[in-house]
C-alpha cells in the first residue's frame, strides 16, 4: 500500500491549534497532499468520516524490557501494544539487561525495531554506567547510535554532584536528561503513597517529599547548567508548584504525567490489588487535582504512560513483594479521551499537543504535526467508539493494569507509521 488517501476526516493541527475537515494523501511514507476533496488517483481510500486524524502519538516513556526481560515484554510485543494503543512511536527506557549504557544495546534496539517495521522505537541511553549512579556513560557515542535522551529512570542518580556533571556533559552533547525524581532515602521500603490510605492499610508509605526534594534539585541543577531536563511521571501537587515556578523563570524544564496518575488515587490500593502498585505511587485526591490543573495550564507538557509490563507470577504475590509498574500503552488514549477530553479538562487539540507535538519537540523527533512533505505517521481517533478494558485482549505481554473493566469512550481506530497501516479496527480500506 504505497498510496493511501484518508478521506473525510477532521484533521487536528496542534501547531495552528485548529481542527479542520481535510483529506490526507500519503505517498511513499510521506504526506503528499493535504486539503479538502482530494482525488484518490489510484490510491487506496480509508473512510475516516467522523474521526479525528491526528499527527502520530509518541509515548515518551515506556519499558520494552528487551534485552534481558523478555518474559515481561519484547520489542515486538511492546511495539504491537503501541500500535494497538494508537502510538506511532515509543521512547524506551534503558533499564534492560544489559543496561542501555553502550552503543551495542542502543543499536540492537533500533535494529530490532526496524526489522519489525511496526512503530518507531527511540531508545534512551543511561546517564551512568550500569545506571549505578557513579561514572558517566559515553553520551556522545550513545547519541550517535540513536539515543534521543539520557536517563537512569528507576534507579535515579542519588549524588547531586554526579547529576550536575551529567547535565553539563549532556548539554554539551545536546541531549536532554529525563529524571525519575525520587530521593531513595525518603522512599526506602515504601510501596504506596504515604497518607491516610497507607495508614489504614498498614503499608509502608512513600511520602510526597521523596519526589519533591528531587524535583527541586533537578530544577536547581538545570538552572545552573543550562541542561534541558524533563521530569518524568510527575505525581504530586508540590512537584507541580516547583515546575510551574521554574518554568515561569525560564528554567529549561519540561514535565510529563501518566494516565494512571491523572485518573486514580491511593484509594485504588484498598484490597491490596498489586496492579495498583506503581512508582511513583498513586497519590491523594489533591495531587490528582493539581496534576489535572497543571495539564490544563501547560505546566505539564506531555502525557506518557510509563508502560511497565510484568509477568502474572511476579504480580500474584503479597503487595509489598510485587514489583512496581503498570502497563499503559493500550489504555492511554482511551483514558485521555474519556477522563480528560470528555470532561473538558483538555480540548482535543490540547490532548494532541500532549500526546504528539510536545514529546516530538522535547526530543527533537520527526512528527508532531501533519504537514505536506512530512513523515506519514498518523493516529486516527474515533471520539465515539467505546470499549470495556479487557486485559486478555492486550497485545502487550503485561496484564498488570488497574483499569480492567473500565468503560472507555474515544479510542484509537487506526495507527499509520511511515504511511503503512500497522493497526486498525472497524475501518474499511478500499483499494
Amino acid at each position, binding site marked *: 500500500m504505497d498510496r493511501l488517501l484518508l478521506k473525510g476526516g477532521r484533521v487536528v493541527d496542534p501547531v495552528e491549534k485548529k481542527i479542520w475537515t481535510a483529506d490526507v494523501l500519503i505517498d511513499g511514507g510521506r504526506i503528499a497532499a493535504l486539503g479538502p476533496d482530494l482525488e484518490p488517483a489510484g490510491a487506496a481510500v480509508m473512510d475516516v468520516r467522523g474521526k479525528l486524524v491526528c499527527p502520530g502519538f509518541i509515548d515518551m516513556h515506556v519499558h520494552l524490557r528487551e534485552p534481558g526481560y523478555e518474559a515481561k515484554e519484547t520489542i515486538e510485543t511492546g511495539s504491537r501494544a503501541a500500535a494497538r494503543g494508537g502510538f506511532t512511536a515509543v521512547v524506551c527506557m534503558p533499564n534492560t539487561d544489559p543496561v542501555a549504557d553502550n552503543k551495542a544495546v542502543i543499536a540492537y534496539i533500533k535494529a530490532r525495531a526496524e526489522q519489525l517495521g511496526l512503530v518507531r522505537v527511540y531508545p534512551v541511553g543511561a546517564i551512568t554506567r550500569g545506571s549505578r549512579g557513579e561514572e558517566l556513560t559515553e553520551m556522545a557515542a550513545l547519541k550517535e547510535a540513536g539515543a534521543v535522551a539520557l536517563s537512569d529512570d528507576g534507579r535515579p542518580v542519588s549524588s547531586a554532584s554526579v547529576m550536575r556533571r551529567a547535565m553539563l556533559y549532556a548539554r554539551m552533547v545536546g541531549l536532554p536528561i529525563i529524571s525519575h525524581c525520587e530521593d531513595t532515602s525518603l522512599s526506602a521500603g515504601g510501596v504506596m503513597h504515604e497518607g491516610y*490510605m497507607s*495508614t*489504614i492499610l498498614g*503499608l*509502608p508509605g512513600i511520602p510526597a517529599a521523596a519526589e519533591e526534594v528531587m524535583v527541586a534539585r533537578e530544577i536547581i541543577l538545570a538552572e545552573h547548567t543550562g541542561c534541558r531536563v524533563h521530569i518524568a511521571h510527575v505525581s504530586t501537587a508540590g512537584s507541580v508548584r516547583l515546575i510551574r515556578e521554574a518554568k515561569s523563570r525560564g528554567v529549561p524544564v519540561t514535565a510529563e504525567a501518566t494516565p494512571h496518575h491523572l485518573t486514580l488515587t491511593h484509594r485504588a490500593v484498598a484490597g491490596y490489588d498489586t496492579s495498583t502498585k506503581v512508582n511513583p505511587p498513586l497519590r491523594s485526591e489533591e495531587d490528582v487535582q493539581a496534576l489535572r490543573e497543571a495539564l490544563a495550564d501547560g505546566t505539564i507538557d506531555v502525557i506518557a504512560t510509563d508502560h511497565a509490563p510484568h509477568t502474572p507470577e511476579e504480580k500474584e504475590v*503479597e503487595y*509489598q*513483594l510485587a514489583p512496581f509498574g503498570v502497563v499503559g500503552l493500550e489504555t492511554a488514549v482511551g483514558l485521555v479521551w474519556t477522563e480528560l477530553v470528555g470532561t473538558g479538562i483538555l480540548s482535543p487539540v490540547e490532548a494532541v499537543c500532549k500526546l504528539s507535538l510536545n514529546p516530538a519537540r522535547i526530543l527533537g523527533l520527526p512528527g508532531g504535526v501533519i504537514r505536506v512533505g512530512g513523515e506519514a505517521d498518523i493516529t486516527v481517533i474515533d471520539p465515539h467508539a467505546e470499549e470495556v478494558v479487557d486485559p486478555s485482549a492486550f497485545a502487550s505481554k503485561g496484564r498488570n493494569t488497574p483499569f480492567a473493566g473500565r468503560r472507555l469512550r474515544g479510542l484509537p481506530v487506526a495507527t499509520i507509521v511511515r504511511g503503512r497501516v500497522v493497526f486498525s479496527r472497524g475501518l474499511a480500506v478500499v483499494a
Partner: protein
Amino acid sequence: MKWKRKDLLGLQDLSAEEIALVLDTAASMKEILSRPIKKVPALRGRVVANVFYEPSTRTRVSFELAAKYLSAESVSITASASSVVKGESLKDTALTLAAMGADVVVLRHPLAGAPHLVARTVRCAVINAGDGFHEHPTQALLDLFTVREKKGTLAGLTVAIIGDILHSRVARSNIWGFTKMGARVRLCGPATMMPPGIEVTGARVCATVEEALEGADVVMALRIQKERQQEGLFPSLREYTGLFGLTRERLALARPDALVMHPGPMNRGVEISAAVADGPRAVITEQVTNGVAVRMALLYLLAGGGAVDG
C-alpha cells in the same frame, strides 16, 4: 443476626452488629472454658490450619487451644518448617492447604494484605491472625470483649492508646473496633511513629500523654520495639519512657476505675511500669483467657459449627 462472611480479614469491614455477635458468641464460649471438662463437639471433623509466617506464641497457642476445645483437628505450620523455605509462594501454600481439606486457615504474616491474597485464592474461611502493620482483628475483639465484660458496655467509653501507632496492627484494629462500638479513641505517641491521616478512622491524636489519659476509661500501652531506635524513629528508651511510659502518676489522670491493657509481650519498665502492669487495674492476664474464648467464637462462626453443646 447470623454470621455471613467467609473470612475475617479486619475490623474495618465489620459492622457493630457483627462485632456484637462475635462478642456474644465468645461469652458462651467463655462459659465452656470455666467447666472442668473444657470440650464440646461443635467442630468435630473440621480442620483448622494455623499458618504462621512470623514467630508468635500467645496467638498461635490460643488458636490451637480454641480449636481443640471445639473438637476440631488443628495443624500448625511455621514458616521455617514448611516449604516456604523452598521458595513456595503464599498463593501455592494456600492452595495446597485448601486441597488437603482445611476448613479454616488462620494466617499470621509479616506483610499487610497477605490474608486478602489467601482469601481471594481459596474457598475456605480465612482468619487474619495479624498481617504486617495492617490489622490484628482477633486481638482487638478480645480487647473489646474484656472491656465489655468489665464495664458492661463499650458505648460512651474513652480509650487511650499510647505508643508506636505506626507499626501497630493492634492499634488499628482496636481503633476500628472501639469506634464502631461507640467508644472514643485517643492516640498518643512519638510524632515519628504517628501515621499520617489516622484521624480518618475517627480516632483523635493527642499532643501529650497527659491529654490522652485525662478521664480515660481504658488505657492501652503498646509494645515499643528496640529496633525502631536503630531505624532512627526515637532517640532512646530512656527518653521514650520519660515521655510516654505508663506510670502510676500518669495513670492517676485516668478515671479511678480505668482498665489497663497491653497486647503483650510487655517491656516492663519501658512502656509500662511494673507497678502498673501488676496493679489492681491491669486486666492483662484476663485478656489472654478471653483470647481463647474469642477465637473459639470465630472458629465456630466461620466454620459454621453445629450447636455448641452438641
